[in-house]
């Protein structure tokens, strides 16, 4: 097989991959260059085509912008907390509910339903759910406990968003963990039962370690998605109250579309670009090295 692929004309394969490469160059390569040029330029909406190269003033203005650091801190905290909560809940549900789901797979369809709804729509739905006059949550809190509180006020907006995100994306972790749990070879489980291992020992020493790679991947994916969150936060709180719920994505969006600060928005994009690719390639490198070591 390998000899055959080597003998086959190499250029034919290159031809087949060319459309994709061209597409990426136009729609990502060119924007990346524009980003880099504009980030070191003095750019306004008037001189878009002839930006004046001006050094690193844009980066300085981002660096000295308190709301940039506030947004970074929000994104980091939001990503970490939602990833941990989603994976913890998802892991528990996947293992605890697996006897039910094994026999009735349509239960999984019900649990997966939130994943199919646009996060932006879910955010809008929570505007209704939490509304002080027409929302059921404040209504039931009033009728049952005689008190409610402002879910999107300064003190609680962050935690409300955490709950909103976690409830929508726990099914993702649940699904991943359920698949991994089902993939554990039955012989291993049976063998450990024969050896007299107790359920919690089996879980702790056999099943969870076998699921560890999936847990790491799920944590990573959910952290990334939480870190770059935009849709549901944007429609639910904008960036308020007082910029306290602006993620980095919202920060860049608002710098560009609301303040017209192109230079600042572009510089922040470049910082995010460099940091995310550095982190991602670093992770790839570590993963490949581990794979190599095992081989």
């Amino acid at each position, binding site marked *: 097989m390998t000899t*055959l692929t080597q003998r086959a004309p190499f250029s034919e394969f290159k031809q*087949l991959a060319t459309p994709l490469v061209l597409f990426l160059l136009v729609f990502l390569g060119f924007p990346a260059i524009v980003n880099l040029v504009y980030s070191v330029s003095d750019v306004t909406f008037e001189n878009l085509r002839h930006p004046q190269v001006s050094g690193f003033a844009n980066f300085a203005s981002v660096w000295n912008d308190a709301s940039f650091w506030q947004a970074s801190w929000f994104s980091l905290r939001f990503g970490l907390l939602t990833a941990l909560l989603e994976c913890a809940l998802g892991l528990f549900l996947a293992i605890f509910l697996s*006897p039910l789901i094994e026999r009735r797979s349509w239960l999984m369809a019900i649990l997966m339903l939130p994943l199919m709804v*646009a996060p932006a729509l879910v955010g809008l*739905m929570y505007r209704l759910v939490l509304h002080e006059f027409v929302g*059921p949550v404040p209504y039931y809190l009033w009728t049952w406990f005689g008190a409610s509180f402002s879910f999107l006020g300064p003190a609680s907006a962050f935690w409300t968003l955490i709950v909103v995100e976690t409830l929508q994306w726990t099914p993702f972790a649940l699904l991943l963990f359920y698949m991994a749990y089902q993939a554990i070879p039955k012989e291993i489980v049976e063998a450990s039962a024969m050896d007299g291992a107790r359920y919690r020992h089996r879980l702790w020493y056999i099943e969870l370690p076998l699921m560890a790679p999936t847990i790491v991947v799920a944590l990573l994916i959910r952290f990334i998605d939480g870190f770059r969150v935009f849709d549901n936060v944007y429609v639910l709180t904008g960036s308020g109250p007082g910029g306290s719920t602006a993620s980095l994505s919202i920060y860049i969006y608002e710098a560009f579309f609301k303040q017209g600060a192109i230079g600042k928005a572009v510089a922040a994009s470049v910082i995010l670009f460099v940091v995310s690719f550095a982190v991602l390639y670093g992770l790839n490198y570590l993963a490949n090295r581990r794979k190599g070591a095992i081989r």
Partner: protein
Amino acid sequence: MITALRWLVFGVAAFAMNFPILVTLATSFKSARELSTNPGLWVNAPTLENYSAVFTVSDRLNIFLYLFNSIVVALLGTGLAVALALPAAYSIARGKVGERMLLPFIVNLRAVPLIIFAIPLYMMFQWLGLLDTRLGLGLILTIVNLPLALVILVNAIRDLPGEIDEAALMDGAGRKQILISVIAPVCRPAIVTSLIFGFITAWNEFLFGLMLTTSKAVPITVGASFFFAASGGGVQWGVASAVMVVGALPPVLLGLIMYRQISGSMTAGAVKG
């Protein structure tokens, strides 16, 4: 006993995670009068008046346009992504072309906050006249869909035995021919999966719809938020709920019908990617 507990946990989890959907569904059937007196989950006098209001075109709001836009951009963004990814996936899986650079780059792309490309793309679209066009939004959704489509297709082709190609090569077929008449038909399940998954992702996309469209090419996720803009007497919650139900329905139905394929592709993208 433990089974009862499992059912209880299932019920609580399913209820909590689907709670906003249930509330919206209930509210969409409430009359304006009932809304002001009954914020609960139960509907006393169900009515369809909100839905007829939603499907009434006004000069400010046109749900048919938003739905049409979403269908077109989702089809475009999905079809183009698969059309670009399939030949590339074949080269990666069989020819080892781009395995070291292209594949990791695109896989990483899935994890990058796409907002970092948003501003130059906005300017580029302004120059090219692609702002507020369905073509422009469809091209961006192609970028959004590419990573997962590529991973699914590369995995599918890698799983095929190399003898298929070999036999066709012996018969004198070129790689292009093999791809079209041998690989693509065999990979149909993977292609269908990436199309479904891409359609749902594209339909649910919000950020680029918000930035790159203003009126003519507005997709439903953005259009739905227009119904929340106060029109004189504040938000009409019944109408807004009906819009959200309509906007959420296509991907939800697709997801319910195809959940087995979707769950498989989600894990494929996550674990092998």
